[in-house]
């Protein structure tokens, strides 16, 4: 039987084959070829698309270029969501590669945050980690870390260094044995067809009686519609990292193994494809 460590590795090295095409409306000097790339599921769009930008800039005039943004089938893609979440939420049942349209004009300010440099991503990433640790350990672990430890986490993500990242991240995943888990589970539930960005509430991994809560328990509380009752047609898929864990999976285990590097468990609830 494989070890739980392999799950961490699989999660980290998850890739989405992506085809970037330039938006038709962009003014180009010559026709832009599509650009194919394997995107890390746990990273952020604007962090890993330098090559895409370089590729398309070759066919464009500098004065036509504003801030780059991405769109999938009419939906602007929020760079501050992990790439895997964007894919699972919007394109989980589509044909691979994932086809993303690249824009250099008409930045949708109402939908997207600006991302002028990677330091913005770093700030966003670190604030997520801090928020998660506030939930897990009252911020005790992250506050005990030094500046260079924080840097190691970020550099690990930026350079796709699994060992480097986990050498530090494991500290964030520790908890007192007698407690049976974190204080609260840092999670976010995303819905495909909703105006609300995501659901995030306080939820403990262990019941007062000492029983471990499961993914099902969490959904029952947060999003009962996502659960298929007996005899019902399955309406929703509950997707984490492109897979559908069983509802009896313990939440604490999920949080330790299927969280993104930002230490949040990102759960996508998407409608079952009607084919």
């Amino acid at each position, binding site marked *: *039987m494989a070890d739980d460590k392999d799950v961490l590795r699989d999660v980290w090295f*998850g890739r989405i*084959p992506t085809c970037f095409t330039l938006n038709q409306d962009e003014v180009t000097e010559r026709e832009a070829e599509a650009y194919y790339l*394997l995107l890390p599921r746990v990273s952020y769009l604007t962090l890993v698309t330098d090559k895409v930008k370089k590729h398309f800039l070759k066919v464009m005039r500098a004065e036509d270029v504003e801030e780059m943004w991405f769109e999938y089938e009419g939906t602007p893609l929020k760079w501050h969501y992990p790439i895997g979440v964007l894919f699972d939420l919007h394109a989980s049942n589509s044909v*691979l590669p994932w086809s993303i349209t690249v824009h250099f004009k008409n930045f949708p300010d109402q939908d997207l945050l600006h991302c002028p440099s990677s330091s913005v991503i770093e700030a966003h990433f670190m604030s997520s980690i801090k928020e998660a640790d506030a939930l897990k350990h009252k911020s005790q672990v992250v506050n005990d870390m030094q500046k260079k430890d924080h840097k190691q986490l970020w550099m690990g993500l930026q350079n796709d260094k699994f060992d480097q990242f986990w050498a530090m991240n494991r500290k964030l995943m520790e908890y007192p044995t007698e407690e049976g888990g974190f204080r609260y589970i840092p999670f976010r539930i995303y819905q495909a067809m909703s105006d609300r960005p995501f659901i995030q509430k306080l939820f403990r991994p262990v019941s007062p009686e000492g029983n471990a809560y499961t993914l099902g328990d969490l959904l029952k509380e947060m999003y009962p519609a996502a659960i298929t009752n007996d005899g019902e047609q399955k309406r929703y898929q509950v997707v984490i990292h492109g897979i559908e864990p069983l509802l009896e999976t313990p939440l604490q285990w999920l949080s330790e193994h299927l969280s993104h590097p930002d230490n949040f468990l990102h759960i996508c609830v998407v409608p079952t494809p009607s084919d």
Partner: protein
Amino acid sequence: MPVSLLWAVDVYGRVYGLSTAGQQWDQCRDAQMEFKRVTAAQQCCWGIACDNNIYLNVHASDLSIRYQEETYENQRWNPVDGFSERLLPSDRWQWSDVTGLQHQPLDSFQLPSSSWEWEGDWYVDENFEGEPTEKGGWTYAIDFPATYTKDKKWNSCVRRRRWLRYRKYKAMDTWAKIPSQHTTLPDPFSDISCGGWEISEEPRGRLCLWAVSLQGKVWFREGIYHHNPEGASWEEVLLPGEVVQISCGPADLVWAVLWEGQLIVREGISRDCPKGASWAIVESPSSDVGATHVAVGNNVVWVVTKDNKVWFRRGVNSHNPCGSGWISMVGEMIMINVGQNDQVWAISSEDRAVYFRQGVTSSELSGKTWKAITVPRDGDRSHSSANLEKGSADGPESGKTSRDVGKATPTVLEEDTISHEGDAKAPCAGVALSPSQSGSPLDTQWSNVDLEEAQSQQAQTGAVLDSADTCSLSSVATYTLAMEDPYGGDEHPLWAWVSGGGCSVDSHSQLSWFNSVNTASLVQSVLSMSLSVSPAQTAAWRKQIFEQLSERTRREIDNFKHYEQAIEQSVWVKKGSMQWWRDWKPHKWIDVHFALEQFSGPEGNKDGILFIYYNYYEEKKYLHAFINEVTILVPVLNDSKHTFAIYTPERTKQRWPIRLAAATELEMHDWLALLSVSCCDSRGIQGPPAKQAIWSITCKGDIFVSEPSPGLEAVPYPTPCDQMFWRQVGGHLHIVECNSVGIVWGIGFDHTAWIYTGGYGGGFFQGLASSTDNIYTQTDVKSVYIYENQRWNPVTGYTNRGLPTDRYMWSDASGLHECTKANTKPPSPQWTWVSEWAIDYSVSGGTDREGWQYAADFPASYHGYKTMKDFVRRRRWARKCKLTTTGPWQEVPPIALSDVTILPCAAQSTVDMVPVWAISNKGDVLCRLGVTALTPAGSSWLHVGTDQPFKSISIGAASQVWAIARDGSAFYRGSVSPQNPAGPLDQVGHYDFTSHIYRHGGNTYHTACLFVGDFVAFVLGLQVWIIADKVQGSHSLSCGTVCHRLAVQPMQPKGQSWDYGIGGGWDHITVRGNSVEPPHIRFPSLTDTSSPRSLLEVRNTEVDSSTSGC
């Protein structure tokens, strides 16, 4: 930590045990009677039953309690009859003890009590001082008493032989009555307390048992030790007053409470005088309220006064047993008990619950808070009905059963109790006949707990307690239960007494005693929690995630491998500051910058380079090492710096590793873990070690494993020793033994047996370098020794003023280094002191009563008595320190081992039994039953009875077991089979193994002295590996080097030369996992000493400074 028990008695006199691993009180079903008080040690529990007799419950152990009776048959030669029983009138008895003064015919030996049985009949001991004697076991001398020899000479006028018979203690796990002494004990006992097991290790298992009689006298039980658990007799101890209660700590503290409320403290307790010499009086903590109860530990005294207030005595230790002052504590208790590690239990006066004092550590002996133990009793739900059954069964039978327990004549008192008990039971029996009432239980429970008769009625329907006429005479148990409580009294046991003397917990112990709320759900969750480890591995949800993840990889990655990666792999550098033991003279620590550069190698495998940047005469220079050339990373023992060594083949040859020191322990561990992962990555090694791995141990106790190519001997050019890659496994061991099916046993410095769990990592390897399952806490304890040296001068005798040329007056064993009590530190920062300095009497050569050894001068051979020629003396002080770490090891309780051996077989299936033999640290020979590849820990020990203690054991091909006794005799046990795992043991002769213990797995003795030195050598198949004391070209630190004998062939068993590997500082190696195929070699007869040997194991434990001759 082994499972141990907390004992308690409830107000009805029922005895319960709570396991440190358990979550409920288990009733001691065997206790046919009610008990008043119990007092526990690790190996047994003493109690006073309601018949006022003292009972002993010895915990069952795989190691049976065998007592050797011996007597001597003496004969004298006369010209007519030759040797005959006819002795001279001035001679000793025909049958006598060893001195000849005591008449001891065979039939004078009686079993001391009904708890014993004879193991066999008398037989003649044919072993004399480790050598087999002529038939008949006679030894000869000129006259009585004289020096005996095994050979008969012309002038041998007398002879004698020793007869042996064993008796065995059979009353295990049952309450056996201690025969009473009618003549000296006019009144029954009211309190007892046992302890004193830390005063001395000799004789083994010694206990001190103190008892108080109803008239207030104090008695001491003489002669309790392992082979005589019941003790010999009661001795009265004179008193300044009348005592009500007494408490004896694990070491030399004994306190008692007087009727008047003062306390008395026993002074002068020592290893020679466990009874102590005199009493000192300590006033009650409160001037107007007397003390009623006292409990002592190693360095603590707790007292309860009449108003139920709790007091802690400050400043108590063995030098000052009276302490210095009282501190008032919170809580109102009726009794307190102190167990091991000064942990404290108490029974609250308010709710009669057992409380545990949390946070008691050696630095904070008074602890932090009281925490109630809230676990349920077994069968609490069906409690009322079970109780009724018990009542009805006990009524008619109680008289009989109590007689069964103690065969000795029942005293009048006992009869009294029985009739009383029978009467008391009657109402219960009555209730039992009307089962309709058990739905709303209204059973009146009775017991005759001395003066503490108690009655309690369950008041589910709001019934009022009928306490007017039957309530307790003392302050016990008139207690109103909460009316709304759905389970009435069953929910809340009322306790009368608790004893933690047998309960090995400390402030770090994880106990699950405190969080139960609901009985049923608790038991449920316990079950699911205890099972959660293995089913989690196979749980559907887990399987689903693994399957889906690999499905995801197929879907999203496998078809798109030709796509470009978004993030390019680059070089990753980790930097730090360290100190480096520089390579050139004068050697010293210099500050350096340290960097590890990691990158992906040409074939996608990871690799790296280590850089050490230093300044050489203002010039910046660096030293580097390729990660794929590093053979081992070794933490080095250093009491002030956090140092480790990096070896490459070249540096192993030079015996000069790169030695580095990190600023903090944490930093060193981070670096070691990182470098280790890096080295393993570059060699493509991951996960647990293979079954063929070679295991070794450093003298520091670190565990290393190396996985050579299968069949080291098979290839014509085996991997040179210095190129073997070793990686560390978490944990701490002294000895490790393995075999080829992956069974690995270890023994710690404290003789605890450990079994390898199949994991990897642990210790400072955390996160990715460690497996998640199979890692457990491991502790080890060892002693640090220093010597106190003195020189004699004619004026003042022995003083600590030596000659100017003398060694330090406080030194290490060599005398070269000064080691005082104050400046001696534990071996490394990971170790912490757990005891005070104490004189060590167990030094080879013996000591006098104060621990001194004498000699003519330093350094010389020391002896344990003073002669006219002795001008210097020394004594050894020992202090224990403890290490707590983690590793893939699980304890095999409860017997402590000194040696273990596993058959190097290639078992055909995972259910085949694998022979495992061991020697306990007391010298018992043990055979482990039920060991298979699936259950490497086995099930139980089979104790193989022997006439003398053993020190070394080895099992070889065809399951031949060889063992060496402490007196040097070698024993051989053939035809060990699964059907007869123990086989017969034959003595094959005496070899002078006092300096060299050669261990043999084969058929012959191999006494050629290939090596002189401190070495451990193991031979397997045709592999010979040793730990050499010194090797050629060695520097001072290279003692303990792994060496491999090259070209050992069946016809050339001596081989050709040694190949030197990693070292120094190595202590132990086992290559038994590396056997390629099961040995199929036919064995010639025992007498053929020149025959080839296929399995040979050599081991030497003697320190010898000579260098190797080969």
